[in-house]
């Protein structure tokens, strides 16, 4: 009987966190972003969430469709692309995107950035633009200001 009760209680405790989640306060940083490539354009919102040893980020287009998910390790300074939208999910694009986002993230978060010769960084008001000089790809980030209150539950 005790085992049965324990089983039921553990079932509930597994299910409840997802329901109780709505009370969690989030420290995510939000930016509007645009990536201009010679043959295309992608824009939307970048949301980052920091912990002691990593920075996780999701780039979603304005409609809410996920474009890129990544995780950056503070320990070894590496960025791993967790998921990339299908039409960008090619090995050479992933490699370039991973390197570029790693550099952009370091600039955005005030971390030491290497390979500065490969990129041009400029600021305009509160926007930051990073240009990959070799590939002619421009990444722009602007902190988002909300129109009312908190946007997370």
């Amino acid at each position: 009987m005790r085992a049965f009760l324990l089983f039921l209680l553990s079932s509930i405790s597994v299910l409840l966190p997802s329901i109780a989640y709505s009370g969690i306060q989030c420290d995510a940083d939000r930016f509007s972003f645009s990536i201009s490539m010679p043959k295309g354009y992608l824009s939307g919102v970048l949301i980052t969430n920091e912990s002691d040893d990593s920075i996780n980020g999701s780039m979603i287009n304005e409609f809410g469709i996920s474009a890129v998910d990544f995780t950056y390790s503070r320990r070894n300074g590496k960025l791993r692309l967790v998921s990339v939208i299908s039409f960008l999910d090619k090995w050479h694009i992933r490699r370039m995107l991973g390197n570029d986002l790693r550099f952009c993230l370091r600039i955005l978060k005030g971390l030491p950035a290497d390979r500065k010769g490969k990129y041009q960084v400029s600021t305009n008001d509160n926007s930051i633009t990073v240009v990959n000089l070799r590939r002619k790809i421009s990444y722009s980030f602007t902190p988002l200001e909300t129109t009312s209150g908190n946007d997370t539950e």
Partner: protein
Amino acid sequence: MKRLIMILLTTTICLVAVNAAPLSERQQKEIAAKINKTASGLKSMSCTFSQTKHLSLLSDKLLSEGKMCYRQPDRLRWEYKTPYRYLFIFNGTKVYVGNDQRKDVIDTGSNRIFKEVARIMMNTVTGKALSDISEFTVSVSDGNAVWIVTLIPKKKELRKMFAKITLSFSKSDLMISEINIFEKNNDRTEIRLKNIKKNITLNESLFTIPAK
């Protein structure tokens, strides 16, 4: 003790039982036909919406609210008012995307995401996606007050982006009330439509692509 077990069992069952009741193939076809009929009679609509993007990697949610207007055959105005101002206008092959900082006009022919999203948004908010058997495998289930239509993409390009899309239609007037988009990376976008007004006069200026 028995009572405690009953309470715990009931709680567990309530928490777990979220699946909608399945229907026979004939029933599914009948309901889909009815929804299609309603959709084909829909000349225009306007509503407010709330959108919740569930981000699996960040264990976070992004809540947005706004207003939507649709007019046959290919006009859609999708306006986010909170927490960020964004305006989308789909007008034929052109999409306008604007916020306080940036305004762009995109040709859907050159932007694949927008092309797919524009088509899916228009076809789902109106219910037309049900008749597009070349695009989706359609199934219908009974969700008490609503019919739940599940669309599983058939085309490779869509399958890479979306695992499935579910649409909830009110049983009383067969109008759409909720859209859930399940992405391949386990993110989910939930859109709830409220204050729906059907077949109303909508000024063309609502769908005019603004000058940059």
